């Protein structure tokens, strides 16, 4: 009796979890997009361009993502996300440093795409201690 109840209940729990996960990802997408637009508007109004650039690396996606995780999931998961983000942050510094000379040699779209190699390399190296810790 109890085993048949569990058999009925588990798929329902799994589908409930899947719906919850999809909902969380959709909310993260909407919140991330909205916050990026807010920072972009602020950045457009700022001058000089070098000062506005501070906001091109603003933690818009992180603030939105971590807030959704805290509200919809657990603080522990947000804490784990933040630890992983340290590696991505190191990659972001490398990306910005790499894209400046690349912009002298290529169009922005090409330079921005090529500089991703720097982000991936540095984030991957920094991710080793972060993921193993």
């Amino acid at each position, binding site marked *: 009796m109890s085993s048949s109840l569990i058999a009925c209940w588990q798929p329902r729990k799994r589908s409930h979890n899947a719906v919850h996960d999809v909902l969380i990802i959709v909310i*993260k997408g909407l919140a991330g*997009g909205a916050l990026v637009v807010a920072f972009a508007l602020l950045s457009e*109004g700022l001058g000089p361009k070098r000062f506005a650039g501070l906001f091109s690396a603003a933690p818009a996606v992180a603030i939105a993502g971590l807030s959704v995780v*805290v509200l919809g999931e657990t603080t522990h998961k947000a804490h784990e996300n933040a*630890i992983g983000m340290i590696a991505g942050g190191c990659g972001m510094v490398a990306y910005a440093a790499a894209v*400046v000379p690349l912009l002298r040699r290529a169009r922005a779209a090409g330079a921005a795409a090529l500089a991703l190699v720097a982000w991936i390399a540095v984030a991957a190296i920094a991710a080793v201690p*972060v993921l193993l810790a």
Partner: protein
Amino acid sequence: MSEREPTIADRLSETPHLELGKIAKVRRRDLVYRFLAGAITSVGAGVVTLVFGPRAGGIFLAFPAILAASLTLIEEQEDSVEAREDARGAMVGGVALAVFAVVAALTLGSLNAAIALALAAFAWLGVAVSGYAGLWWRKGRGS
């Protein structure tokens, strides 16, 4: 379209300012691109979190999709000199982003989550603005 690289003197004489009129002139299409860049990065980080765990997903919270979109749009509207200037600012912004992550990692779980995120955001802003002032602005004001 000026391709002249700003000189050191040009850079040091510029005082940070906010022009609300420029915000009103932002094209809707540019905002849509940026919304999509932010939304796709957020969804990607969420999917990686689901598949590989929250630490792996967290790496993508600092994915440079927004900077890449901004550089492309700046070059299109202005020139590559301005795009390079934006990227130079983003180097300091990137350091501040990493500090945001460190502060969030240290405080989430030990402090109230709202306070922890607010502290991380203030740390980001403080490092970004003081980094800019220390490197490029303060010197131009005579020190």
